């Protein structure tokens, strides 16, 4: 046994399936499991089932680059993600599960005057809304990241950057396990390998889900599906402003030095951090064309490697060890969609694009409150699906770290 496995939370798996639950959550990723956890622990609602088609965290929860940050560009998003970042800081003590959370700071490099203006505005907006983000000069950046090539390979000079001091990483599958074990301990049933094949409707209302082993009745069905949410919502007659795009990532072999901050470039659309195992983890923008394929593409890896080695030349000496891809639900305004759908009994938490991991605690906490009280908490009210009908889209593409 090692410290690594000793601190794994164990999960109480259910023996049998009930024919009816107060709440059925479709999707055993971070958002589905955290919603179940907060329903049980904050609101005493334990007659809850989470149905996962594969194994828990097998989707984007276990495929992202594990970055936790709140340096967004609009007040609604900054407040929401800052709250999530703070929940993450206390998640280990709350759940008793080691999620390997590390506050490292995240640096967004600017290579042009236009990007400098954007980052200055970001710092002001973040400060006004409760997130700690400060501008750094090239010399200060070099001190924070000695490996940084300030000339950007003579192509992308570093003029400065914003430093989001509380930026962090955590081990992604452990976050899912922490919420799953905590929810199960409180009485929630978490089922793996249980795909939901349809929704049960009575008139205009959703009253349950269909599975291969028959239907399950539900007071409320929450779709926390990642990747195939368009098809899931269509079962309820709900149409979504979402496109599903692959995003690729890779890790290198070990870098023998510690590399503490997370470094990203807003213009090159590329982000680099070190995993707890010492590997360098690199991700970038999603594919321009939608697809449900999780095949890693050589074109993407070549492009990411080219970008990352511009400003961190030491990466040239490393080798790509492992590659993978996830499929991201990119909403039309690059903000998440949480809450009511217009169909009674059917809620969604979706549109998590490339920004879902950092939102797992706050998203789950807020969706649990919505289910328990019937009212969306102020933190997520702006993110309702009907914002598009009301002409209140929350455009924040510039903060997605991707495009």
């Amino acid at each position, binding site marked *: 046994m090692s410290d690594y496995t000793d601190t794994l939370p164990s999960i109480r798996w259910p023996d049998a399936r009930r024919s009816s639950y107060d709440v059925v959550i479709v999707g055993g990723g971070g958002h589905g499991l955290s919603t179940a956890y907060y329903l049980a622990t904050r609101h005493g609602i334990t007659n809850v089932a989470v149905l996962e088609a594969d194994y828990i965290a097998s989707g984007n929860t276990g495929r992202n680059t594990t970055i936790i940050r709140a340096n967004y560009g609009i007040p609604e998003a900054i407040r929401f993600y800052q709250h999530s970042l703070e929940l993450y800081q206390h998640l280990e003590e709350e759940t008793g599960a080691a999620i390997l959370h590390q506050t490292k700071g995240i640096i967004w490099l600017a290579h042009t005057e236009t990007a400098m203006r954007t980052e200055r505005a970001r710092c002001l907006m973040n400060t006004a809304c409760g997130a700690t983000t400060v501008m750094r000069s090239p010399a200060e950046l070099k001190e924070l990241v000695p490996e940084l090539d300030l000339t950007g390979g003579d192509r992308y000079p570093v003029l400065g950057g914003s430093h989001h001091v509380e930026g962090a990483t955590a081990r992604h599958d452990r976050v899912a396990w922490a919420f799953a074990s905590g929810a199960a301990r409180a009485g929630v049933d978490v089922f793996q390998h249980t795909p939901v094949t349809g929704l049960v409707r009575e008139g205009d209302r959703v009253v349950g889900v269909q599975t291969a082993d028959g239907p399950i009745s539900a007071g409320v069905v929450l779709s926390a599906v990642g990747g*195939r949410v*368009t*098809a899931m919502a269509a079962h309820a007659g709900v*149409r*979504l*402003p*979402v*496109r*599903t795009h*692959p995003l690729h990532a890779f890790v290198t072999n070990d870098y023998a030095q510690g590399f503490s901050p997370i470094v990203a470039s807003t213009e090159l659309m590329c982000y680099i951090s070190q995993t707890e195992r010492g590997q360098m983890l690199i991700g970038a923008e999603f*594919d*321009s*064309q*939608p*697809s*449900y*394929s999780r*095949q890693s*593409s*050589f*074109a993407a890896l070549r*492009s990411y490697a080219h970008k990352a080695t511009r400003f961190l030349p030491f990466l040239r000496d490393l080798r790509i060890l492992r590659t993978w891809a996830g499929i991201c639900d990119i909403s*039309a305004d690059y903000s998440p969609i949480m809450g009511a759908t217009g169909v009674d009994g059917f809620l969604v938490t979706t549109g998590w694009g490339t920004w879902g991991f950092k939102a797992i605690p706050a998203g789950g906490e807020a969706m649990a409150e919505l289910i328990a009280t019937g009212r969306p908490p102020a933190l997520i009210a702006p993110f309702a699906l009907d914002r*598009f*009908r009301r002409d209140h889209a929350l455009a924040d593409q510039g903060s997605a770290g991707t495009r």
Partner: protein
Amino acid sequence: MLWLDCPRCGRRPLDEFTFGGERRAVPASIEGADERDFDEVWVFENPDGITTERWFHTAGCRRWMTVRRDTARDEVVEVLEALP
């Protein structure tokens, strides 16, 4: 998907092209002016399978083409010079 067969220029690397979005029409089953507006402006069909979309050959002939593509595997099925 690494290459695209431009009807005018032949087989070219994908980075020469710009994705122009899916080609769709609001389904006849959507009723009411507001709902049809919402659908037209915001909704994507986002199918897990064959889709019809527009691509622009940015670094080539600088003209539009229509591509039928299987999103399940991200593979081109057919490229058409004109609108379908």
